[in-house]
């Protein structure tokens, strides 16, 4: 339960961090709040030669409203969002998600960028930010690229990050006033990893809907045009039109072979839909 020895570097700025990573390649791991990596280190599931601590980098703790989106630095914590220390463009959606992640002591250190980089399919931000249509800036020494959330998570604990690349910012689009948001999860014990997550951002007046079925042991199912879940058309009566059979088929296609698990996922999604319609 004690980590294997590792080297430790605390770069003074992002450029220095990227340089260290570029040099160290695969033998280095980035740490921010350490709330996912810490347990893995303690259990010796991960034994990096070098830990690069980015938690002190001021550049990654900035938040700014840029046009129609909010740009969050990767080291913003769940508690920062929960407490409203950063502006909100999601009409409370992110605040609601943040406040129910793990426990307060974990939220005080756990970061959004770290959670995404860790890519646990059951992590809240993986699903919530996919539903919100967020994008990420990934930076390496050779430059930056932008990736949509739904392309970022590749599988269980696997993201699109390449060696030497880190999540720099998270871009969250402003939620239109006409949009409805619903987010539900099922945990056996409050604060534990979810066994099922359902998230929906639906705008009946624009006839658009993004739906995410998450915590399925691989990358979440992200449906960017979710009309099929509502009988082919998105309108004000979407709650009544929600078609559980379509969701069930999507889950089966995503490899969820256990019918009971699909049942739980479908019902959690149904709860999210009801919350959006409430």
């Amino acid at each position, binding site marked *: 339960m004690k980590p294997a020895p590792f080297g430790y570097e605390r770069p003074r700025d992002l450029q220095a961090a990227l*340089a*260290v990573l570029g040099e160290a390649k695969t033998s280095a791991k980035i740490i921010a709040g*350490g709330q996912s990596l810490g347990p893995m280190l303690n*259990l*010796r599931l*991960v034994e990096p030669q070098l830990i690069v*601590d980015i938690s002190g980098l001021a550049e990654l703790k900035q938040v700014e409203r840029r046009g129609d989106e909010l740009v969050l630095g990767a080291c913003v914590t769940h508690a920062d969002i929960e407490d409203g220390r950063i502006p909100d463009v999601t009409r409370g959606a992110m605040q609601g998600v943040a406040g129910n992640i793990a426990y307060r002591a974990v939220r005080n*250190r756990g970061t959004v960028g770290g959670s995404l980089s860790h890519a646990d399919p059951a992590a809240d931000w993986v699903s919530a930010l996919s539903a919100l249509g967020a994008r990420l800036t990934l930076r390496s020494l050779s430059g930056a690229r932008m990736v949509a959330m739904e392309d970022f998570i590749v599988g*269980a604990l696997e993201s699109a990050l390449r060696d030497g690349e880190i999540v720099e910012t998270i871009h969250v689009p402003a939620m239109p006033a006409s949009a409805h948001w619903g987010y539900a999860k099922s945990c056996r014990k409050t*604060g534990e990893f979810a066994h099922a997550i359902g998230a929906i951002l639906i705008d009946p007046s624009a006839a658009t809907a993004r739906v995410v079925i998450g915590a399925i042991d691989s990358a979440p199912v992200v449906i960017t045009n979710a009309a099929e879940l509502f009988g082919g058309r998105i309108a004000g009566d979407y709650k009544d039109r929600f078609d559980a059979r379509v969701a069930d088929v999507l889950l089966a296609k995503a490899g969820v072979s256990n019918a009971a698990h699909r049942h739980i996922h479908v019902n959690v999604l149904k709860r999210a839909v009801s919350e959006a319609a409430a």
Partner: protein
Amino acid sequence: MNMIALTVNQRAVQVSAEPRTNLADFVRDKLDLTGTHLGCEHGVCGACTVLLDGVPARSCITYAVACEGAEVTTIEGLDEDDVTTELRAAFTREHALQCGYCTPGMLVSARDLVLRLPQADERLIRVGLTGNLCRCTGYVGIVRAVQSVIEARRARNIAPEPDGGRKILGPVGSGRSVHHGADRAERMPPLGSEQTSPEAASSVASIPDFIPATVLTQHFSVAHPPEQVFAMFDDIAAVAACLPGASLTAPPKPERVEGAIRVRIGPIAATFQGAARVEQSPADMSGRIVGIGNDRRSRSSTQGEIRYRLVPIEQGTRVDLSIGYTLTGMLAQVGRPGLVRDLAARLIAEFAGNLDRRLSGSSPGDDTAAELNGMALVFSLLRARVARWVGRFSSKNDEAT
């Protein structure tokens, strides 16, 4: 060892510690502040909860070196604290502790709730305490104690502080290190971390039959006739070459194949060394590979078997696989069959592609591992794998990092 300077219970402290020393061990072993307790050591039980820059944090998954310049308050530093004083009286009155092991962490979390919650709502208190496990009391007394202190303080018109007094962004405890000198990074080399020496596969004496704890089924198709695929499956070296991460450590014989498989999921890597035997049944074009192996690093071992059956289809052959495995040791504690399934599916897709290429006359080449973004996946045929892992182990700590 590295010099770490921070403030503990309002006292400036400068002590050397290894980078891997967590904050709990730091205060307990270096400063003799043994009131901070360690339970699970992976962020779940809450016994180690301390105040870091004034708000609760897990000291078992926070490394002391990352807290350079931070203000740490342990239970010993709360003797004179108003809220904690009230809580101690309430805990005593309500029988909110028995053995006392969880109590230091419980008081730190309770103090946070007293400060932040607007009113003494039982549900919110219970939710707020879910990150602190108590095996004795059943929580009833604890919840009552917290409730009574909140009620008393609100009755005295002490307003809640929903943010717990935190005004800056980022992980608590971070960002206060003072940089001096011109180097671009504060560097601490690892102390003699030796690479694990590979364990000899030959140490596995026998390859027993077993009943797998978990069985996954998968299938894939290749555009070649069953006879050709079956013959290929007889060529153990060729099969191993199609498996990303697999390597043979001795010339293979059907009754004993020695080798290793490196499996990776995200940051978790394991190399299972062991032995397998291969059986084939030409009559129905099926076969079985059964093996056993150990990953020395995680002190985990696995037994696995792969049964396959070749089914002719219009465009070639469908290979039906049944993968059974039993995993014990550290990796088993964090395993979820679903994640293994996800890994197996990705591995099998790789394997199928390589097999197809090889049957078509080209070699699988090294593109495989590279393609998978460095995850040397691998599977195991030789043994079945493992894997698992994943993350969730800890139950919590969700997000993080």
